[in-house]
């Protein structure tokens, strides 16, 4: 298996799907001549020409809507948001159009479109560029929400997302682009709605997605030194959610800590907590714990920015609470 970056994995996924299907095109700000604000679309313009790699002006609602219209009549657009923070000015097209057209049209029109781009806090980019908005989109029936944590998952899931007949929100970890990992040499896809055990353990289940998977595995290493074995479950897609893999793990460990970089109120972790109590109540030995960012817009200063987000120590503390060690 080749070792490549998360960024290269996404690039390969798009390249392969564009080779495979002439109806796939990519549109967004700086995706072509600039090779992508985060270089995810590097080289695609050279390979596929301006017809299929389209630089859009700063008009997210406009080009998101163009993607929806094109998808309704059979194309398969990949719409890149320079960051998902900017998707908020296009959310009308995502929520009111893309998510609803299949239902509203009585099943006559579907919208096979991928909205993708970086998500979550980066480093000192301030309140407006540091949001993790998966809970917004996971709330909406008609959308699928994918949040890969590794290069292999990024590639396999993006390929599946492009082939899916529904609108897919594909949120990439902004700080994961440089992360390297093994990726299968042969072509593969990963189904949406199937989670992954990122680390096996018997004492407590940690549920996390995107970058928080890595925070959890780091916390698990710290705890392992103290003889506490954490199982880290990465659902990979929030909608549809692989409730089964989470429930199976919690029924084994009897304890659950959910870690997300989003805000606490109505965050997606609250839904996971509901599912866990609904399906595992008799197996739980402690209340379900959540670790989230603090309930504030992101501050700029590095020390404060770190303090706001879930850190390894916060996960360790939550595990201690779940084990009644604290």
């Amino acid at each position, binding site marked *: 298996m080749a070792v490549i970056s998360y960024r290269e994995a996404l690039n390969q996924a798009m390249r392969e799907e564009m080779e495979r299907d002439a109806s796939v095109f990519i549109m967004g700000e700086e995706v072509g001549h600039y090779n992508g604000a985060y270089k995810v679309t590097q080289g695609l313009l050279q390979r596929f020409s301006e017809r299929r790699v389209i630089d859009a*002006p700063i008009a997210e609602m406009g080009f998101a809507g163009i993607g929806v219209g094109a998808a309704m009549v*059979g194309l398969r657009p990949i719409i890149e948001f320079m960051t998902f923070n900017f998707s908020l000015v296009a959310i009308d097209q995502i929520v009111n159009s893309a998510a609803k057209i299949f*239902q509203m049209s009585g099943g006559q029109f579907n919208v096979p479109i991928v909205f993708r781009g970086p998500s979550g806090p980066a480093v000192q980019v301030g309140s407006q560029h540091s949001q993790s908005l998966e809970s917004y989109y996971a709330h909406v029936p008609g959308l699928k929400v994918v949040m890969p944590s590794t290069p292999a998952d990024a590639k396999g899931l993006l390929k599946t997302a492009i082939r899916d007949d529904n609108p897919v929100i594909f949120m990439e970890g902004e700080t994961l682009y440089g992360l390297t990992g093994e990726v299968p040499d042969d072509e593969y896809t990963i189904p949406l709605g199937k989670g992954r055990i990122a680390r096996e353990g018997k004492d407590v289940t940690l549920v996390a997605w995107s970058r928080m998977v890595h925070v959890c595995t780091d916390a698990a290493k710290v705890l392992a030194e103290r003889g506490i074995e954490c199982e880290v479950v990465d659902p990979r897609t929030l909608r549809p959610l692989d409730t089964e893999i989470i429930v199976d793990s919690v029924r084994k460990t009897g304890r659950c800590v959910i870690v997300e970089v989003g805000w606490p109120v109505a965050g997606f972790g609250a839904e996971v907590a509901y599912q866990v109590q609904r399906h595992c109540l008799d197996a739980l030995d402690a209340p379900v714990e959540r670790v989230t960012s603090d309930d504030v817009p992101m501050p700029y200063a590095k020390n404060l920015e770190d303090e706001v987000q879930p850190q390894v120590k916060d996960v360790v503390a939550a595990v201690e609470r779940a084990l009644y060690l604290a």
Partner: protein
Amino acid sequence: MTTPDTARVELDGEQTATTVDELAPLYRQMLAIRRLEEASAKAYSVGKIGGFLHLIIGQEAVCVGATAALRPDDYVVATYREHGHAYAKGVPARPILAELYGKKTGLVKGLGGSMHLFDKATNFLGGYGIVGGHVPIAAGAAFASKYRGDGRVTLCFFGEGASTIGGFAEGLALAALWKLPVVLICENNQYSMGTPLYRSLAVEDVSMRALAHGMARDRFDGDDVVKVKRRIAEAVDRARTTGEPTLVEVITYRFRGHSMSDPGLYRTKEEVEEWKRRDPLNRSRARLTELGMSAEALDELEADVKTEIEDAVRFAEESPAADAYLPYVVKE
């Protein structure tokens, strides 16, 4: 309150040259739409149709004339006031009315309702309830036509009230930049809900918004269905041959309120009556007589429409209720 002067700008009183063969089917469509709308209003008033119901009575010449300039494979994207557009694009009265009734036999199986008619068979890409949000969608269908080189044109209808929202501005900007084959038709009925044009726009002339994008524009009154057809055909031809979009403003008037719940108290009786004297249906009917269509032939046409709509009402009444919803596409 008086009618803003803009409405009279292009009134010329001149008749567009036509024939009975051309005009009679257009008149028939307009009449069917009016009878369909009247039947809907009646059903709504006794609770058989729910939700919002926006009628197009008074504006029929715009959707009928414009759609007559299309090929069957061209696309139409419309607003929540779109029963007439769907009918003009070729959707039969039966499934339209059954949809309003929330029936299983409805055009979209009772899942869309009055504001969300869609029909793949006639390339009717839908009725949308977020003002202006469908303008980029129409540009997207046109983008697909350009991408494939299939020669299709997309018509996008909206009211003058949509011309202030972002979706309209961005849709225009991208359609102009990328030369997308779309004709953007502003059905200026002079009131965005209860707010008259002069209180919602700083300019009287909506088509001026095309100038900022270097886009072609046109502007005329929409009472003469043949005139609408001719002028829209010019824009459709431009889109088809050069790929260039056009913003077309058609001045029109709705005889009823914004929706069934609106008595329209913000307009004077005199104003409404003045516009009713210019009723596009009466105008076309008089023209047909002038062109030599016999009273018997007109009676026959009108009786035929009556039968069609009565049949649609019966169909809607007797159809079974909707029975299943569809949240996602499930892949095999």
